[in-house]
């Protein structure tokens, strides 16, 4: 398979390799993610019931209350945070959350190219996401 590299913009530096969890819907961290276990709890969300822990969490952008930033911090303190965040368009709630929780973050990525279960490399310092291995379908 040919490796696909997607270029974006560094928001918070860092590097990781992990499995992708991809949503095409915005995520509200306040009310949308349970800070106790890292599961997405927003009704009707395409990732409802999925856990963000250890994943490269890909979604278009955040929405909702600015308290959502603190939820990301709280998740990180409990080791329940995603390993990296990949957005189409960064928004203040998620940016602040990623900074205080020290989660590598990139935006301006065409997240439709990434599928849940793909193994991806996130190099936030250099601003790219590489799809290392497609999930076997």
């Amino acid at each position, binding site marked *: 398979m040919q490796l696909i590299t997607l270029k974006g913009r560094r928001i918070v530096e860092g590097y990781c390799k992990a499995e992708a969890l991809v949503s095409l819907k915005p995520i509200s961290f*306040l009310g949308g993610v349970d*800070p106790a276990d890292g599961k997405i709890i927003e009704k009707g969300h395409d990732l409802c019931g999925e856990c963000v822990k250890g994943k490269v969490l890909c979604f278009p952008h955040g929405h909702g209350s600015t308290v959502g*930033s603190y*939820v990301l*911090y*709280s998740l990180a*303190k409990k080791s329940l945070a995603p390993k990296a965040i990949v957005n189409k368009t960064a928004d203040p709630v998620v*940016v*602040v959350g990623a*900074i205080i929780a020290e989660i590598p973050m990139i935006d301006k990525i065409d997240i439709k190219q990434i599928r849940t279960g793909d193994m991806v490399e996130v190099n936030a310092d250099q601003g790219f996401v590489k799809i290392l291995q497609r999930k076997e379908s």
Partner: protein
Amino acid sequence: MHLTREEERVYDGECGWASKICMKILVRLGELFDAEKLIPISSAHASGVSYKTLGDAPTEFLQALADADGKAKVEATTNPQSFDMGYLSKRFDKEVREKQLKVLDQFERMGFTQSLTCTPYYLKTPEKGAHLAWAESSAVVYANSVLGAWTNREGGPSALASAIVGKTPEYGMHKAKNREPKVLVKLETLLENETEYGALGILLGKILEDKIPVIQGLENASKDDLKQLGAALASTGMTNMFYTENVAEKTGEFEKISIEHKDIKKTIEDLSTASNAKADLVFIGCPHCSLDEIKHVADLIGDRKVRDGTELWVCTSRCVRAKAVESVKRIEHSGSHVITDTCAVVTWTDRLGIKTIMTNSAKTAHYAPTLNRAETIIAPMKNCLEPALKG
């Protein structure tokens, strides 16, 4: 973004973790909105204080900042919490009281004034043209439109970061070109009371998105009417400012909108959701009452007493309450409560068994069905007080 040498030192952590993380927040947000530099602010006002809206997640971060000696560099104030220290605090259980007080402790350790109000401008009015980092949306609109100060609508974390760094990224409302009006709103009707001004705000918020209007027909509006208008405007839209006609420079082409009496009437009807006309709680003070409003409430109540089975709350800040000693005495003599530090929206009215809230505030009427799980009746102050009082 261009940083000064001093700012770079903070960014690199030479001044400790607290200011480093706060600087990083401001720089990244600045980059996001294409700011070229940071500018000094005269004050910061933090939201995210009420435990009801915060929950448990933020306490750890606030504590980490305070532990790392995070200190406000500029005048910094706090939004309301979820109860007052007197009447309401006794009505909630110990666990939530302690959790709320823990949040307040962290702000206090960081040097914030415990203003606990959505109207920090009554504590200290910012100067015209001053740059601020304020987070309470109603105060943001009031500051930009009525006081002539310059502030974006900050979130809780960014206002906190600005307080600790003493600066904000220069974008949005901090740039003159972004403060130009884009829409001309023509009021075809004379608004008669604060509730109608609030309804106008609710309506315009939905139409304008984030565009700044010039509103013609506000000549008779008091500052308290404009406070209602702005608070409602911010509840339904992203507009951070409006002009009253006499201050607007008429340049360029305007998009035009006409508002008629029937539009205001329909908005008020939609804001009242209650199926029965009887309220458990009559609530005045969203946003927190000014000195004039407190006096007005006292005059309207006169010597009458509150009816059994009804609660009457008049919410304000500690600083206004302290200035209104005589009026407060008269209001409390009636059996109503002059409550500081909180309001009906940020406290747990549902846990107090309150199912229907009557208010003169369009902002409260807009939020109470979801944030308080309460039905609403909206009416001007005078009409709110009547059914709550005997005689």
